[in-house]
């Protein structure tokens, strides 16, 4: 018998109603993520990447099909599926430490455990010297570190990331990509990562899922069999880049035409 996937979307569709007019954001999407996998979703703007992620998180209910985690239907957001937003979503009135404590505290953990967990994950993302600082005093990259520590401290089994590094400068972005891969390989985490940067997807993913627009669908999937750590200047990396770029451009052409 096949292994049960940690996350599975079966024939999932989502139609939004906007001013009474239906907008079909997603149609017939199938996606299955195995435990420990690092999956990247790429696709043109508006092809339903965020929608798919929000369905997986449980923020929205699908209008067709089924979404499940470990075979159980997803009925709403929960700690086992941690979300990292592009705009961070940190609580501005809490210090870094209290932001990381928020999850364990909500779930009624004991004080000892809350504190130990928070310290451990603050250290994991390298923010121990900033634990008592408020979010508005942090740079974008540091805020995103807090957001990552926050879901990890809450025992997230799968981390859903919606263009988490999209707003960061190139250097910070690269540094965080490295750190994310490092954390992922050390903790056995599962990651579903949305991006529209092809290079980022090839650098990070075990598997890249390409979506196409109008309405949003899963177009194709590629297993990236490059050895880690990956060299973005290598020939194989370039081959992947070329392949995925031509794939995405064909979508653009179709949409425009």
């Amino acid at each position: 018998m096949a292994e049960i996937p940690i996350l599975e979307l079966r024939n999932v569709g989502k139609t939004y109603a906007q001013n009474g007019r239906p907008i079909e954001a997603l149609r017939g999407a199938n996606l299955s993520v195995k435990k420990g996998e690092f999956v990247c979703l790429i696709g043109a703007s508006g092809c339903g990447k965020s929608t798919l992620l929000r369905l997986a998180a449980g923020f929205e209910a699908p209008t067709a099909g089924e979404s499940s985690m470990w075979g159980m239907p997803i009925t709403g957001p929960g700690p086992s599926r941690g979300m990292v937003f592009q705009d961070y979503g940190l609580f501005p009135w809490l210090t870094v430490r209290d932001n990381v404590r928020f999850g364990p505290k909500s779930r009624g953990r004991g004080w000892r455990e809350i504190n130990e967990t928070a310290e451990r994950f603050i250290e994991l993302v390298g923010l121990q010297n900033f634990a008592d600082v408020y979010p508005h005093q942090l740079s974008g990259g540091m805020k995103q570190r807090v957001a990552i520590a926050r879901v990890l401290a809450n025992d997230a089994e799968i981390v859903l990331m919606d263009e988490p590094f999209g707003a960061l400068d190139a250097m910070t972005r690269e540094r965080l990509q490295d750190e994310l891969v490092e954390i992922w390989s050390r903790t056995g985490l599962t990651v579903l990562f949305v991006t529209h940067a092809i290079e980022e997807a090839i650098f990070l993913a075990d598997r890249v899922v390409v979506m196409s627009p109008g309405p949003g669908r899963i177009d194709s999937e590629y297993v990236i069999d490059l050895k880690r750590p990956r060299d973005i200047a290598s020939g194989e990396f370039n081959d992947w880049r070329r392949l995925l770029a031509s794939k995405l451009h064909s979508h653009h052409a179709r949409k425009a035409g």
Partner: protein
Amino acid sequence: MLAPSTENTAAQERPAAMPLPVRRSFGEGTWSRLRPVLLAMAFPLLLLALWHFATAGRPASLIPPPHDVWLELQDLAFGGINDDAYSRTLHIHLLASMSRVYGGFALALIVALPLGMLIGRVPLIRQSVDPTIQILRPIPVTAWLPLSMIIFGLGPRSAFFLVFLGAFFPVLVNTIFGVRSVEPRLFEAASMLGCTGSAQFFRVVLPAALPSIFTGMRLGLGFAWVVIVVGEMTGVQTGLGAIIMEARQLSRTEIVIAGMIVIGAFGFLSDQLVMLIGRRWLAWSPTHG
């Protein structure tokens, strides 16, 4: 304050690279600290001078010179100058006014905070109460004066009611605004971290609304001081508003002005106190802290 701006150094290495405050020479430092104080003083001193030269040594002047007002202020506070019915009565009137200001304000908070939260968060209550509030709100507090005299009679209860009304609407409106304008993203963040239902109210809505609520409280307390004078003109015996009105009838203009100065000073101190509390509460907010 820690304010890292770039990501170029690893977080662990940062503290060593924290910028040191620029050293200034002593004279420069003192000057930069004194400058705002001196600038703030210059204008009132100018006004005081104008007032003095326009009134001093003119017996026919309707307005007494600053020196007379200063003497009256001392007499009101400590006596020993005029020794009339007003000597050493300042603390009585001040206490009466302050108890109405803070009492009315406190009552306004007790009613407006929960009501505002309910209107802001419960659609059914918003739909049934909010339109009425929107119609009542533009009625100036002074327009309530006659009605409040009819209901509460001549006396301190009327004043108290007006102060309550004056503080009520700013607190209410800002509380509603605060609890309604919580970023949706924060609810999502809370619920994916396991904080759901009513817990979200205390852990997300309230803290997020605090800056707004605070603004409402500051405005409300300011209004309470504005309204107290009007409120105390309704036939009460004590209070700063009462002696101002009474002194006008007795043509004791120096008492009128002295009373105004006391109201201004205490209104200012009261606002400073609220600001101090706000800076503590809202240290996290880039616009308040």
